[in-house]
């Protein structure tokens, strides 16, 4: 009885004596405490996103791509000039002057640094990238060209993905004679350099955007089909495919509903590396003179135009080259990031 009382009073004393304060629960910030995301239970795609956005280069790539896409969409409209518009400006004496071959001019900046306005015919008109030899605004043309190049790349890659993926999946699924024949065809198609395809196409197509698109369509699907076939060969041995077969699913269902969603990872990686190839091919074809025709423009044709005047007007070639280099860099960064996010190696975890 006495003992019990003592214990109770002791307890009461202890409780009275020490009341925990807020400071007792401060997190030790100098230690590297993060949530363990690698082993936490989470969905596959959530893990991919987390890993992707932890990769600094990939995030830089995404930011650059988004910025360029935004500028390609709104850029041509904010300058107030059309991409094919030859700019003529009325000067003080009432004459119309062709605004050709102007270096970049931003009146505000000019005034800031020199303390005076431009004293030529063009007054306070702004050309961020200058104008070309025909008197067209380069800012508009560069972003319009970026739009054309990106559009070509996206359209061809999506169509190529559909063709290549179906081809590879079907070839891999049926195997046997069908596979042998289809793979021989791929082998032959793969031994024709893209240049030759462009040459043959040029014999009967008019030069322009469509020639570039068709040339890309005819070559880029091969890589996609190889990857899809390899994935199919891996997946079709797995149990769930057998289960699907046992339940009476037809070939179409198995190929496109059971296998296709599981091949998406490697395909996305391939797409990310195909887009810069497409942009580069377009730029290269336009540079050589079988691509985009005037007054339309693309990154490649702008570089080509700039190259003709490089010794006298070197600033004309810089904006398209920088945009092209940034695009290639960004897509390669994102491609690497996607590949690493989809198939993490143990040392990265």
């Amino acid at each position: 009885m006495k003992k019990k009382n003592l214990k109770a009073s002791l307890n009461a004393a202890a409780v009275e004596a020490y009341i925990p304060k807020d400071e007792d629960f401060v997190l030790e910030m100098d230690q590297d405490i993060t949530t363990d995301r690698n082993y936490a239970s989470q969905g596959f795609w959530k893990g991919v996103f987390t890993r992707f956005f932890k990769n600094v280069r990939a995030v830089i790539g995404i930011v650059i791509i988004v910025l360029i896409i935004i500028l390609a969409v709104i850029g041509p409209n904010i300058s107030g000039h059309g991409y094919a518009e030859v700019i003529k400006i009325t000067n003080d004496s009432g004459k119309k002057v062709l605004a050709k071959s102007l270096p970049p001019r931003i009146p505000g900046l000019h005034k800031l640094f020199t303390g005076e306005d431009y004293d030529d015919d063009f007054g306070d008109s702004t050309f961020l990238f200058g104008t070309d030899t025909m008197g067209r605004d380069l800012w508009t043309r560069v972003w319009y060209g970026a739009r054309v190049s990106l559009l070509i790349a996206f359209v061809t890659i999506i169509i190529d993905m559909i063709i290549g993926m179906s081809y590879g999946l079907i070839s891999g699924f049926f195997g046997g004679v069908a596979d042998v024949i289809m793979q021989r065809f791929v082998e032959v198609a793969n031994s024709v350099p893209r240049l030759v395809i462009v040459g043959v196409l040029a014999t009967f197509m008019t030069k322009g955007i469509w020639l570039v698109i068709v040339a890309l369509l005819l070559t880029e699907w091969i890589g996609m089909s190889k990857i899809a076939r390899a994935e199919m060969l891996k997946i079709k041995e797995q149990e769930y495919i057998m289960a699907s077969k046992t339940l009476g699913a037809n070939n179409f269902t198995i190929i496109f509903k059971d296998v296709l969603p599981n091949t998406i990872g490697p395909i996305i990686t391939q797409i990310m590396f195909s887009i810069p190839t497409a942009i580069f091919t377009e730029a290269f074809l336009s540079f050589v003179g079988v691509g985009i025709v005037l007054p339309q423009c693309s990154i490649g044709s702008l570089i080509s135009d700039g190259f003709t005047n490089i010794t006298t007007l070197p600033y004309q070639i810089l904006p398209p080259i920088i945009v092209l280099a940034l695009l290639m860099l960004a897509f390669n960064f994102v491609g690497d990031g996607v590949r690493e996010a989809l198939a993490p190696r143990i040392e990265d975890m």
Partner: protein
Amino acid sequence: MTKYIIKRVIMALITLLIITFVLFLLVRIMPGNPFPSERMSAAAIAKKRAEMGLDNPMMVQFWNYIKTLITTGSFGNGSALYNGAPISSVLPVAMSNSFRIGGIAILFGVFVGLILGIAAALNRGHFWDVFCTVLSIIGVCVPSYVFMIFLQYFFAYKVTIFPFYFDSARFLHSAIMPALSLSLFSMSTVARFTRNEMVEVMDSDYVLLASAKGMYGTKLVTKHILRNALIPIVTVIAPLIVDLLTGALVVEKIYGINGIGKLMVDSITGEGVDYNYVLALGILYSALYIVIMLILDIAYGLLDPRIRVSSSKEG
């Protein structure tokens, strides 16, 4: 091994024949006009067509084409380019220009790339490694022709060390810039691949074992690391050479080189596309590509006995 090579060669020949046939068919069937029609009368066109055998059945035309190609080495005459001179007299000059520059570029690119890659792998995290990474990023994101333009601008225009245009009379002096700009991409790719492969091999157990047995230095690098690392590098070289072919198109335009790339561009961008040139160059390019693939396939088999064994079991 002999069986492997023979099988590969036969397959390559068949592929080339199929491609030649398809190219021939495409070029002949497709609507398109080899003659700039507004300058020729209908009768003159008909006469020219009969002369060139364009009215025969397709198989006969193909057979004739292959027959003359193999027996006399003639691709026929051009119709618009070089005033209809025989293609086989134009091609050798163009080929020698292109191949010499391309050859220098690929040798230089692979050689320097290998050395850079090895240096980077042996000094991981130090100067050469960083240099290699930066170079590979530049090589990936700056198309070779942009690099060419800058090279030309600075070294031929700003500082006149090298001539602006190619001049076959002073071959070496004027070939340095085109070859250098062509080799940038292959150099950076080879360097990156070599580095990654070397690093992977250096971390493997058998290299650990070899060094545990007391092997070190050059012998370890060349005998154990490099030989195993080289195998995958051979596979990147094939696409590189192909890229070189396309890159050569632009470099020939920029530096004014009379090569096959320039011929190709001329034959498809001129007025009235030149059938025979497109066909001849198409066959030439495909043959080149197939031969390169064949050589690399065989080299691959020589370097890696496992491939040789598995493929001779199959067939």
